[in-house]
Each structure stands twice: as C-alpha cells, then as structure tokens.
C-alpha cells in the first residue's frame, strides 16, 4: 500500500500519531529487511552487490509513504529502502535479490535493478546518475497526459558530480517539469569522502543557478524529511516545476556488504548512531504523546516476522526459466 494519509489535505506534512506510526513501521521494515540481508548475502543466498541503507531509512520513509501508486519513483543502486517504502512486496523483493522466479523481475534484474510498475517503483540503476532524466521524462509525460502525477528520483551526493545531473536540472527547470529530485547526501561516494570530490558544500547549492527551488534538511529526522517533501510534493502536484530536496544522512554500513572499510576510520559512526532515525522518532513520539517505546518494539517485532515470512517465501521460489533471455531481450 503506497497511498498515504500525509497526502491528505490539511496534514501539511506535519506529523500526527497515525502518520508517525506509519513512518515508524516503514523504517523498521527497511531496517529489519536489510539487517537480515547481510547474512543472506554473506552465505551467498543473495547474489551480486548488496548496498545497504541502514541509517538512511528516514529518507525513504519520509518520501515514499506520501506518494500514490501512480506517482513514479526512480532509485539508485541503494534501492531496498525506496522499494519497500513505495510498496514493493517484501517477499517478491527478496525473491528478486535471491534470483528467483517469483522475484518482482523474475530474477533477471537483481538488487540494482528492482522494478515494480504496479506500485510505481520504476526501478533502480547501477550506473550513477543514469536514470535522473527518466524522472523528468515521467513527469513530463504525466503533464502531457493532463494528470497531476509528479515523479521522484533518489540519488546520492556522488551523482551530483556527473554531467547528466546538470543536464537534468537544466531541462527540468527550462520545461518546468513537476519532478522532485531527492538527494541522500551521506557524505561518501563508495570509499571517497565528498570533500575529495567537490568544493560545493551542499548539493542544494547547485539548484539556484538553474532557478530550481531547493531545501536541505536533516535526513535522519523523519519529521523534517516528511515535512519538506510534503511541501515539494504539494507544489509538484499543483503543477509547478522541479524541486531539489537534499537530505543530510549517513550510511552506517559499508558501501556494499563485504567492503573492506579501511576508509571508514574517518567516519564518525558513533556520532551518527546517536542520531539513529528510528530512535529519534520514538523520542519525538514520546514527547508528543503519540506512542511509546513499547509501540516501537511491537513494530520491530512485526517487521522481523514479515522478514522471516519473506525469507521463507523467497527461499522456496524456484529459479527462473532458461527461456527468459530469448523471451525478454526484445519487447514483442
């Protein structure tokens, strides 16, 4: 289910108890899924490259839970959180990551290429920046079709140094296309700190020359992400041009499962752990009287149960048919 209470008129993106609970559940589902993914990857049940977003869950949750199924989301290599928050079924997602026939792409795509059109998850890319303009094209198509159907694309701060990023920003602005570009600025691209890649301090600093409105928020505070995205989404649904939302965050694990991690000596993991997005929401909820730590533990338990059910489903799914390459190389 990807429709969202927060999209309702009047909520203004501010949290209430129901929205906060939904965000809590979403973040726990992502966290529990990815924590389980790591051992599955290490035991080779899951193949290829596994990029975890542990620590960054607030961005996926704060953004995707506000979107309808017909509002497309494009993602990058770090896609699990975006997919789950957008409504992709956990069992089918895991089956995909295990290369099984019941995966959402029948095992052909894998972790960097998850697509689930029914839930408006238009997929991830393994080439940094490769799909930034897709979102502009999607939003343009929505406009041409006369629908209020903005598109969203997630990208990392590393992608802002690609040429396609500037091209995308310029065209989105020139044509005033209703697209929200959501940057997860985690300060690293693979093993290299942002400071070694650019002298631009904030990704949002790049928006003004293109006359694209932008905001930078604390990406580990789901309330801030939610409010800022609600604002951007309302503008986009009303037919305005692009918006760039930068969320400052931190990935608590390696670039991928198994990365040697030497570069992380420089990383302030401990400071960021104290800013864990789930714990922060629980504190905010307690202060606001929405729910207590018990509710969070229940959400965690439910998420872990869902993950185990997904593992059972995926592990029992067969491998795909060998006729698929011939069948699917071209559309017929």
């Amino acid at each position: 289910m990807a429709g969202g209470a927060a999209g309702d008129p009047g909520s203004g993106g501010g949290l209430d108890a129901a929205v906060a609970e939904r965000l809590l559940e979403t973040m726990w589902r992502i966290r529990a899924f990815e924590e389980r993914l790591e051992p599955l990857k290490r035991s080779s049940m899951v193949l290829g490259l596994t990029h975890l977003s542990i620590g960054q869950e607030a961005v996926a949750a704060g953004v995707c839970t506000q979107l309808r199924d017909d509002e497309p989301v494009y993602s990058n290599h770090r896609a699990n959180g975006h997919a789950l928050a957008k409504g992709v079924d956990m069992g089918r997602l895991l089956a995909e990551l295990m290369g099984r026939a019941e995966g959402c792409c029948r095992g052909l795509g894998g972790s960097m290429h998850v697509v689930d059109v029914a839930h408006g998850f238009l997929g991830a890319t393994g080439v940094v920046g490769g799909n930034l303009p897709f979102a502009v094209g999607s939003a343009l198509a929505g406009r041409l079709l006369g629908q209020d159907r903005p598109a969203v694309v997630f990208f990392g701060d590393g992608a802002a140094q690609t040429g396609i990023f500037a091209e995308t920003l310029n065209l989105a602005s020139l044509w005033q296309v209703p697209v929200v570009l959501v940057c997860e600025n985690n300060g690293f691209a693979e093993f290299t700190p942002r400071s070694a890649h650019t002298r631009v301090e904030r990704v949002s600093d790049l928006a003004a020359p293109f006359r694209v409105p932008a905001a930078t928020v604390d990406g580990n505070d789901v309330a801030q992400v939610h409010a800022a995205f609600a604002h951007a989404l309302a503008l986009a649904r009303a037919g305005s041009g692009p918006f760039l939302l930068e969320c400052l965050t931190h990935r608590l694990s390696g670039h991928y499962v198994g990365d040697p991690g030497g570069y992380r000596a420089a990383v302030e993991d401990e400071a960021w752990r104290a800013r864990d997005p789930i714990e922060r929401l629980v504190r905010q909820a307690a202060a606001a009287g929405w729910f207590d730590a018990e509710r969070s533990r229940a959400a965690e338990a439910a998420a872990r149960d869902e993950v185990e059910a997904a593992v059972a489903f995926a592990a029992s799914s067969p491998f795909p048919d060998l006729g698929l390459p011939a069948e699917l190389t071209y559309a017929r």
Partner: protein
Amino acid sequence: MSHVIPYIAAIQEAIREEMERDDRVLYFGQNMATSPEDPFLKQFGPDRVRVTPISETAEIGIATGAAVAGYRPVVELYMAEFLLVATDQVVNEGTRFHFMSKGQVSVPMVMVAGYGFTAGWAGQHTGSIYGMFMGVPGLKVALPSTPADAKGLMTTAIRDDNPVLFFQNYLLLLDEGEVPDGEHAVPFGVADVKRAGSDLTLVATGYAVRTALGAAESLARRGVSVEVIDPRTIAPLDVDTILSSVARTGHLVLVDQATRHSSVAAVIAAEVAELGFSSLEAPISLVTALDSSIAYSKPVEEFVLPDEHKVVKAVEESLGLAPASA
C-alpha cells in the same frame, strides 16, 4: 627469472614501474589515493596521483588534454560500463585527434576498464563489451588473460603514443601467475600460443582463454590435440598467427564471452573465412555469449555465457567426434 603475483598486482607493477621510469605518467580515477597511506600517492605525490569525482566524461577528456600536452595519463575507470557514459570521449574525440590534425598531435593515454564480473552483478555490470571498441580507428584495445600479459601489455600501453583501452577481467584479478623479473613489455598485435596442438585451433580472448584452456585439457585426455591462441590485443589483431595455425589444423573454434554479434570471434571468423578459406575442413564455429543481457539469477547467467562444456561440444562437432560419454 620470474616472480609469482596476481593479475591485478601485475598491472599495478607495470603502472608503478612506468611512473618511476617516466614522470610524465599520471594516474587518476575514482576512489584512488583516498588515504595518505595509498602506496601510489606516497611514492608519486598528489600531482601525479589523483582522485576524481564520478565524472567519467571529464576524466577521460582531461586525460586527453593532458596527453596532447605531453603527459601520459592512465585513467582507472573500474567497470567498463562506466566508460559508456563517456562514449564520445572514448570513441570520437581523442581517437580522432592524431589523424584529423594530420599528425600534429598525439594522444598517449590508457583507459583501464574491468569487464565480465559474472557473479550476479547483473545487466549493467557484467558485460564483455570490448568488441564494441575494436573497430574504432585510432584506438588500441588490450585484453590480457594472464598476469604476465597483464603486466607486459600495460607497460606497452603506457609507452604507446595512442589512446589504449586496457580491459582487465574482474574474475581474473586474483589469479596468480609467473611474471618475468625486470622490464617486461608485450608487443601489441602479437598473438600468443597458450597451448600447442595439431587437431584444431581454438582462439579465445581475455577471460575466455581460461575456458578454452580448460576445454583443451579435457579434450587432451581423449587424445584430441587442441591449439589455443590468445590474440592479447584485439586492435591491432594478429590474424597471421591464427591463419597459420588453421593452415595446420584445418579446424577453427572461437571462444568469446562477448555477445555473438559484438564479439571478437565474429571479426576473426570473417578474417579467416576470407583469408583462410582453403585451409578449412569444417565450418568455423563461434562459442560466445548469447545476444542477451546477462541476468542476475545464477542459472540464467550461466545459460547465456560460454563455458567449457559448450566449447568441447563445438570442438566435437567440428572434428566429427562422438560426444564424450557423460
């Protein structure tokens, strides 16, 4: 005398030795020199060893500009697919410069790109896309299959006055092999006979050399003598060595991990069909990847790729042998 090192270390050894020999050699790419302990950074300093942002187009273009000005840049691009982002720079800029300027400028640079990470890295990260570049005039393409060739071809690539695409195979990186001590340069355009034989010629490139040698070994146990030739560079391509082998064996099977219609195998088949037709006693056979993207799922990935079994089958058919009993 020789020493035993992994394929990746052999490549690094060549780059290091060339940087020591010639201070015009620069080295840059993403994720390089991110720690002060990086051995290249320590030895050669931040002017010559540079980390780049995710900006393949500019990385290759800057290398071209520096090369025109007399430097010899080596650009590490990691996955070959990432250089597709910069296709204009790889194919249509530096490669044309020497010719179109009537030789006023030359562009001595090396682009290093990994390919064939067939370990569930799926459609955008596992291709063997070297075949796409072998018909680009002005561009040389090296495709080593052993640590010794990896070192020797890298040395030659850095010394060459043209843009060179150096494809390293990801699954070979940790393979160990003997590398000659001291200076070691392998000339471009000279194929190597990796195994001598008299019944049939197998020509394989890059990673597929391993597949071909495995097949040759199992065929030898059945008394079939297969010659395995590795062209080592696919541009320039040593057709003569292949032709003279086929003149002796009369049978040719080509093994290539690229998709069939973008393979080196297809080009070699055409050359031999034209220049060696009278030597052939059976049709040329191509064992390549299917013309499909590579799937994430292991069984489908394997289905699409060439393997020893498929090579053995092609050899049996060429020689009219009964299939080995299972």
